[in-house]
């Protein structure tokens, strides 16, 4: 049977991808950022996941304002990197897992989560930057990926509670898939940042770290945090953090923190990263 073994959360700052793609990851500004993922690369090489359910948000790349799905799932065999205005990132095409993706879609829709099913989609930095941070620059990604884009651009995004419950529904779906697969769930985006207006540059180190403590130890409490608290405390774009709750909901109530990293700044953003393994 398929099983979810662990969860990864990470920010998906576009400038991190640009630094890597342009050979600047060794510069003093970026070096500490990438160093935060040295352990992660070794860890994932040992874990050898077959599939990653990758929760991220599209940044006006695949979805224009014509159609804005709150939750979607990519069921295609492949997802090309998007041209976000400066040409596509020079990274491999992302290979999907259509059978498991369709199974998850069918299962969670019947658990009352109305996912939008997508068969053709380009994936932007929200998905490819976490891949680069965890796997570096391989010729081919060593894992299949099921993209789960969540709307956090057009307010309101889904509530933290809804995200947390969706994670649980994804867990039940994966548990009932009859291929023997090692599956990870990743939550991306955040942490505190604001990219717009005179308040741009907002960072809240204390709030971020307290939030992360509670995400690990008492996720039910974090799931109750209203959007307005994210907006005020973590910036208008910090509300992306609700996506980490999907990852957390897919794990056991008890988890082991095998890695945790926090760094300010990555361009405009507080970068956070955590790896959680299921216990019990």
């Amino acid at each position, binding site marked *: 049977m398929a099983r979810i073994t662990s969860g990864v959360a990470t920010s998906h700052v576009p400038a991190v991808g640009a630094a890597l793609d342009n050979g600047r990851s060794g510069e003093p500004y970026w070096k500490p950022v990438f160093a935060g993922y040295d352990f992660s690369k070794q860890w994932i090489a040992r874990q050898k996941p077959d599939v990653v359910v990758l929760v991220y948000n599209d940044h006006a790349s695949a979805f224009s*304002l014509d159609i804005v799905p709150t939750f979607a799932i990519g069921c295609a065999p492949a997802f090309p990197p998007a041209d976000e205005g400066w040409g596509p990132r020079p990274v491999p095409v992302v290979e999907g897992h259509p059978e498991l993706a369709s199974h998850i879609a069918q299962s969670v829709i019947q658990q009352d989560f109305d996912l939008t099913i997508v068969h053709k989609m380009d994936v932007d930095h929200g998905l490819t930057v976490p891949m680069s941070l965890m796997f570096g620059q391989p010729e081919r990604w060593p894992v299949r990926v099921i993209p789960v884009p969540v709307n956090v651009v057009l*307010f309101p995004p889904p509530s933290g509670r809804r995200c947390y419950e969706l994670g649980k529904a994804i867990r039940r779906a994966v548990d009932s898939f009859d291929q023997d697969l090692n599956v990870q769930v990743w939550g991306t985006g955040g942490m505190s940042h604001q990219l717009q*207006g005179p308040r741009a*540059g*907002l*960072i809240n180190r204390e709030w971020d770290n307290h939030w992360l403590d509670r995400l690990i130890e008492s996720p039910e409490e974090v799931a109750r945090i209203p959007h307005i608290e994210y907006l005020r405390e973590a910036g208008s774009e910090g509300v992306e953090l609700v996506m980490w709750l999907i990852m957390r909901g897919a794990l056991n109530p008890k988890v082991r923190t095998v890695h945790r990293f926090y760094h300010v*700044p990555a361009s405009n953003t507080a970068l956070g990263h955590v790896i959680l393994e299921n216990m019990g």
Partner: protein
Amino acid sequence: MSLDKPYSDIPGTVIFDADQARKGYHLNQFCMSLMKAQNRSRFKRDERAYLDEWPMSEDQKKAVLARDYNRMIALGGNIYFLSKLFSTDGRSFQYTAASMTGLTQEAYATMMLHGGRSPEGNRRVGETPAPAGSDQKVK
């Protein structure tokens, strides 16, 4: 609109909600069109002519031509859509964010290196903000 908007008192912040999205639909879709290389080069050749192909308001077009990002956001633009415009100009998120804060890019980058803009005084309109670049690293 009768919906409560508890976020309307956050200083220096426009939340891109359904009302803003309606107002900015064509502005944002114009930005989206710049994801295609051929559209980028047509836009660069004659910005005004390209903009006139879109049913945007004159105010929106002027804000685009002036690269006034705060104005574009007030008129319904969203930063992720607008990113296609500044990417077309070869500008980064950090350059553009700095331009919206009234700081030079250098001063903005220095503020970020010192821990970013403090939330102290920046949660609600009427509070007194901590000075930009005040060090948050001390805990």
